[in-house]
């Protein structure tokens, strides 16, 4: 694995994430969010999990980012008023980062040398999904269907209210 590629991708990812978290304009933040997820997918590629990286790009950059942009456009009236920024959040985030980093560097039980790159093909992942993981797969399908119906019910116009307005 290439160290230079890792450094470049991680700096790219983290700066895009900081931009997504701190930019004033919502639309710019949503686009930085998509860029940050491209960077995370790059890290997945670097780790040899190409399929998960592709799924991440499809789901986040393709679907979730578009959903966020649609939501921003639908709730546009107070987009410009996002001036509030709670500075206590920075203190908490830095404290969490320091604690996690201290724990990571203190622990000695990790195998730090990387094993040989596993040749995990999409065929193997598909076979595992259809054999060992078929029950979780069906449950995820059920959850996704329930989420779809729930989202529709949440945003559905109330019939009587619409009539009243008319």
């Amino acid at each position, binding site marked *: 694995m290439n160290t230079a590629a890792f450094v470049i991708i991680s700096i790219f990812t983290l700066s895009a994430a900081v931009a*997504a978290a701190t930019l004033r304009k919502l639309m710019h933040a949503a686009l930085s969010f998509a860029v940050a997820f491209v960077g995370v997918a790059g890290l997945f590629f670097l780790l040899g999990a190409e399929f998960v990286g592709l799924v991440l790009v499809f789901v986040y950059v393709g679907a979730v980012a578009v959903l966020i942009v649609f939501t*921003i456009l639908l*709730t546009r009236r107070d987009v410009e008023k996002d001036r509030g920024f709670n500075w206590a959040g920075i203190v908490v985030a830095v404290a969490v980062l320091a604690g996690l980093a201290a724990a990571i560097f203190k622990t000695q039980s990790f195998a730090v040398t990387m094993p040989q790159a596993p040749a995990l093909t999409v065929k193997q992942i598909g076979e595992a999904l259809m054999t060992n993981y078929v029950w979780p797969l069906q449950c995820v399908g059920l959850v996704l269907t329930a*989420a779809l119906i729930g989202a529709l019910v949440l945003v559905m116009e109330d019939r009587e209210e619409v009539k009243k307005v008319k």
Partner: protein
Amino acid sequence: MTPTLQIFLVTSAALFSIGLLAALSRRHAIFILIGIEMMLAAANLNFIAFWRFGPQPLQPIGVMIAIFAIAIAAAEAAVGLAMVIAVYRHYRTTNVDQLDQLKG
């Protein structure tokens, strides 16, 4: 020299902290959802890193957990954004500080 597991974990911890910062300090509901998605991505990065550096990279356990976590995160994002739209339709705002009707 190749990157070690620690470096990946620190990157993931940094991504998690940035997501936490977005979820805690922004007032706009969409930013909170963006922060939660970033925290979930950091967790996925941890799963993949531990799978890659683990003793048995031939068994696709880490990959499977990451795929299922991505699916659940997508469902969560859809429901969360629908809730943002519903709240906006009711209160005409998406600023979470103004949604204090249940405050005693």
